């Protein structure tokens, strides 16, 4: 809502406040002021002048040579506007004048002729293009006849006004009117204001004689008033009305339209004027539209209606979509003489639906959608009649013809001052509360601590005790509330074990050299099904799809974090950042239904993607390019941190390198994720180099960890280390031999580590040597050499049996 301070001053004197200070007070008591701006950049030295003569410039076809009377003398001015004509009263920038943009006007010569200033367009005076009346858009502005030569054009055009822009919350639609703003400012400042009674002299003829109002759906349209005005002369509205509209950002059109708009701004009540002759009937029937019924609206669009839309008809055809837009057929035109002026209350939900369906959010529909003041509907009609009589020569017929089942009662709210103070933590006296109610102009009855408040109908938002609590608090001032701390029982806050583990995992990954990322949960249909871990795949999930996505890139809920993570790598790669190590701890969304009806399972996963150089230390000739084992090492470290035994088995996963990918399984053979290289084809598509990833079921990791025994004690007895080197066929995975060693050496073998892998000289083609370091330990006692020897022999026998592994000579 744009509030003109000049206009506000018509209702309530705020001249003693600086605009910024007033804005601050309004913000603190109720409504946020979003900006304080002058209507136009300051212009100086612009006066009204009359074009005494206007001739063709002798040396320029498109210029005119004008003699302009500015009251204190005649100036010769060269003007290029096409609409300049003798006899016009126009804004003249005299030599020394300054136009917006600090543009100084000097005496000059144009194509050989002296020009003592400039005749101005509204745009040149700083008016926003969209607020300039159509006829002046391509040329200079022309004043109405009743202005005096030499008068200050800036104040005549209200260009010295200040506009306060209010950011209205949905509950404060009462301030969608100047009257509402005046009530609010009066309460904030503790000043007097009352909306003046409107008065209009009517003829003896009755509107009811000319038109009958019939309402088919009183719930959707509880009040409809039809005023009839005769002898209307459509023309320009007076300058002051035009100025008010311009200040509020509405372009002046003609006196009839301008006056309905003026009342809309003043009372917050939208009105609509029909050309009664073109309306073509003596019946106004409001009803729900029939399915497929059509109307051509004022903007010359043909629109198809439905029973959700309330329409105004002449008994046959639609002439307006109620509260949204009038029909082209009965639009007020220059030759209109009789007007049917509608003042009505339309149900907010109907108007909202119609405005939405037709994509027509207007000043009118916005107000109806929020609910207009039932006590101001008819009054607004009378106010418009008053102005039309005065400025359009209209004869107003007696009374509106109307349908009226409108509830105009006030909401009653009971409140108790002790309760108010208990809720706010204050000690506001009953007298202060009474004073606050008076400032708000809410009527009330009081008895000691009890107040019964009658909330005026302009404040339909006040229904509950809490609503009144807010009214009292804001006028009392939030600055005046004390600072206290909650008095309830002491409460030990903290993180749950799960939350601690999540933080711990993040700290682990960051310590391991990975940067945390946050990517989008919504991804494309294609990516939603990519790089999905096997244990998720086994649930046969269908990616959850949005009903109305905004773009194909963000249409489905992710089943894996990896695709978006790879997108991030791709983004960086395109910007010459080739060494990336990222991880993310986030949820994926698993629904097992074809058509979603239940909330999907939100599974926490920990994923990472690493590419480029892991370590580069050139002057010591050290360099490590990321490979499978860098990423596997990170996963192993996490498992060690969580104290979980896991196994890695080669596997094929869609989108992953078939020879360099392993699934990770728990001791109980449950899959908890995978680690590996992204398939080169996928890498190519994304324009990224070799990228290694992991994707783990963090939810399960946390679950297993929570179920586990707390801590193992540190062993008190010495352990024994033994190394063995085994020669096996190249195809035998090291992990299989490791497993056999554990099994054969149980329970004494506690740890098996590969420390060398060798192929080449001294070995047969197709063979490799694997060297393991074994740790033997009995937590209860010191081991004897013979025991270790026996276990070692058993191990050698079993690796020979199972893997044909020979002890390397």
């Amino acid at each position: 809502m744009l509030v003109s301070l000049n206009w506000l001053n018509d209702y309530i004197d705020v001249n003693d406040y600086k605009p910024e200070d007033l804005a601050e007070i309004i913000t603190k008591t109720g409504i946020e002021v979003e900006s304080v701006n002058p209507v136009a950049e300051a212009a100086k030295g612009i006066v009204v002048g009359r074009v005494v003569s206007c001739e063709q410039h002798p040396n320029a076809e498109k210029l005119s040579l004008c003699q302009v009377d500015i009251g204190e003398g005649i100036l010769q001015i060269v003007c290029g506007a096409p609409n300049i004509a003798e006899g016009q009263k126009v804004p003249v920038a005299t030599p020394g004048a300054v136009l917006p943009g600090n543009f100084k006007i000097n005496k000059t010569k144009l194509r050989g002729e002296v020009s003592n200033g400039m005749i101005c367009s509204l745009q040149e005076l700083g008016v926003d293009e969209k607020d300039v009346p159509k006829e002046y858009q391509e040329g200079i502005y022309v004043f109405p006849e009743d202005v005096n030569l030499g008068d200050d054009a800036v104040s005549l055009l209200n260009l010295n006004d200040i506009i306060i822009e209010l950011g209205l919350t949905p509950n404060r639609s009462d301030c969608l009117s100047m009257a509402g703003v005046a009530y609010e400012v009066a309460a904030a400042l503790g000043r007097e204001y009352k909306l003046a009674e409107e008065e209009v002299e009517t003829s003896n003829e009755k509107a009811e004689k000319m038109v009958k109002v019939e309402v088919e759906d009183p719930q959707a349209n509880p009040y409809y008033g039809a005023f009839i005005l005769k002898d209307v002369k459509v023309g320009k509205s007076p300058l002051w009305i035009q100025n008010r509209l311009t200040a509020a950002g509405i372009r002046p059109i003609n006196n009839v339209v301008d006056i309905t708009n003026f009342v809309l701004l003043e009372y917050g009540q939208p009105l609509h004027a029909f050309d009664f002759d073109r309306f073509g009937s003596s019946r106004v029937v409001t009803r729900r539209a029939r399915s497929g019924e059509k109307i051509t609206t004022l903007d010359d669009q043909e629109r198809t209606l439905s029973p959700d839309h309330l329409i105004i008809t002449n008994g046959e055809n639609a002439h307006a979509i109620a509260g949204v837009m009038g029909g082209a057929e009965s639009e007020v035109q220059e030759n209109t003489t009789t007007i049917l002026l509608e003042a009505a209350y339309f149900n907010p939900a109907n108007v909202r639906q119609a405005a939405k369906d037709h994509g027509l959010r207007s000043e009118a529909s916005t107000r109806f959608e929020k609910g207009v003041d039932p006590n101001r509907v008819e009054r607004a009609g009378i106010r418009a009649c008053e102005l039309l009589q005065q400025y359009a020569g209209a004869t107003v017929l007696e009374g509106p013809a109307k349908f009226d089942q409108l509830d105009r009662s006030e909401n009653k709210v009971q409140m108790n001052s002790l309760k108010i103070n208990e809720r706010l933590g204050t000690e506001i006296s009953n007298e202060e509360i009474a004073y606050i109610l008076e400032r708000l102009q809410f009527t009330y009855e009081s008895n000691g601590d009890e107040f019964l408040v009658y909330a005026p109908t302009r404040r339909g938002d006040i229904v509950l005790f809490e609503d009144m609590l807010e009214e009292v608090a804001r006028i009392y001032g939030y600055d005046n509330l004390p600072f206290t701390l909650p008095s309830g029982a002491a409460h030990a806050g903290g993180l749950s074990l799960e939350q601690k583990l999540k933080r711990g995992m993040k700290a682990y990954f960051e310590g391991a050299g990975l940067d945390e990322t946050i990517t989008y949960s919504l991804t494309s249909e294609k990516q939603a099904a990519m790089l999905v871990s096997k244990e998720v795949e086994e649930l046969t999930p269908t990616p959850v799809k949005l009903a109305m996505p905004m773009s194909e890139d963000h249409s489905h809920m992710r089943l894996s974090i990896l695709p978006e993570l790879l997108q991030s790598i791709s983004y960086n790669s395109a910007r010459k950042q080739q060494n990336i190590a990222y991880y993310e701890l986030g949820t994926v969304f698993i629904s097992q239904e074809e058509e979603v009806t239940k909330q999907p399972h939100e599974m926490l996963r920990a994923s990472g993607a690493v590419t480029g150089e892991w370590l580069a230390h050139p002057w010591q000739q050290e360099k490590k390019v990321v490979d499978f084992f860098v990423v596997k090492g990170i996963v192993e470290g996490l498992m060690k941190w969580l104290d979980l035994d896991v196994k890695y088995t080669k596997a094929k996963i869609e989108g992953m390198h078939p020879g360099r990918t392993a699934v990770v399984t728990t001791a109980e053979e449950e899959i908890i994720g995978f680690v590996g290289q992204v398939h080169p084809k996928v890498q190519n598509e994304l324009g990224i180099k070799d990228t290694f990833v992991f994707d783990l079921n963090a939810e399960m990791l946390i679950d297993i960890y929570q179920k586990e025994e707390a801590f193992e004690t540190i062993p008190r007895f010495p352990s024994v280390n033994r190394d063995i080197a085994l020669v096996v066929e190249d195809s035998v995975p090291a992990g299989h031999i490791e497993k056999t060693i554990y099994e054969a050496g149980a329970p004494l073998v506690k740890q098996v580590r590969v420390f060398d892998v060798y192929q080449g000289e001294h070995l047969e083609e197709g063979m490799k040597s694997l060297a393991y370091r074994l740790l033997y330990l009995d937590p209860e006692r010191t081991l004897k050499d013979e025991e270790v020897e026996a276990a070692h022999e058993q191990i050698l026998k079993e690796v020979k049996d199972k893997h044909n592994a020979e002890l390397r000579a």
Partner: protein
Amino acid sequence: MKERLQELKAEALNKVDEAREVQHLKDVRVEYLGKKGPITEVLRSMGKLSKEERPVIGQLANDVREDIAQAIEKKQSALEEAALEKQLEAESIDVTLPGRPVQVGGPHLLTSIVEEIEDLFIGMGFEIKEGPEVETDYYNFEALNLPKGHPARDMQDSFYITEELLLRTHTSPVQARTMGLKNGSEPVKMICPGKVYRRDTDDATHSHQFTQIEGLLVDKHVRMSDLKGVLNTFAKQMFGAEREIRLRPSFFPFTEPSVEMDISCKVCGGTGCSVCKGTGWIEILGAGMVHPNVLEMAGYDPKEYSGFAFGMGPERIAMLKYGVDDIRNFYINDQRFLKQYHKA
């Protein structure tokens, strides 16, 4: 004999003096102090001496031995010291060469901010609660006093999956769920951070996915001044002790009264500048007293229980605190951006 001993001593000390290596000293030790050495010889031949002379010469011989041994020891440590110095000299390196790099990762700026806020409220006795990102219409809207048809829950603003399921538009449903578990009889003191989603076209100030962190306290006798006190504590710890706060009226369907909290502008100190659009204040969060309908739907008697709630956007806080000027930066994951804020 006396002369012989003095002679030997002088000779030995001279050799010690001339020794350039530890081995030379060992030779001197063997030569003079060994079992076959000249001093031992002197001692052996003491039988020839008179009773009076024997102790004198014996004493002298011992003194000479002692002196030589001491000299050897002294010289030896001097030689060792010199040898070590030489070795260390040879081991010297150029300490100005760069070290072997260590991979260092760090948290996302939003995580840093969320955890800072979490820790701050944990210190005030709050718990952290989390909830689903795909929510039911009931918990996302209805339980929060946003019945069907309410203008503030326009289909256009939310990502719906079905008529009853949508991506949560705020973290408030976690509050409704948590309250719902208390049978209307226990206090609630919680913070809920998380991802939320709205139908916005991504640009410098809008993101279809963003983060929210909300707080809720429900108990008997909760006052609005408590809200002011808690928010003041939060603002001063988060933004600096010299920050002032102010509350001003606002509107949220789930609170009544509703307020927005501003903090005094750090840039200008409250006098007005371009950062605070000339007002001296910067909007930080929305808050209010829990709406009685919300309490009632969660099973609390609003006559007995009251509460306050507040909510804020970590992105906005990050933008204010660290001057991030484009919200998309939080989700694009440009490495340079992420690394820049690891110490935040």
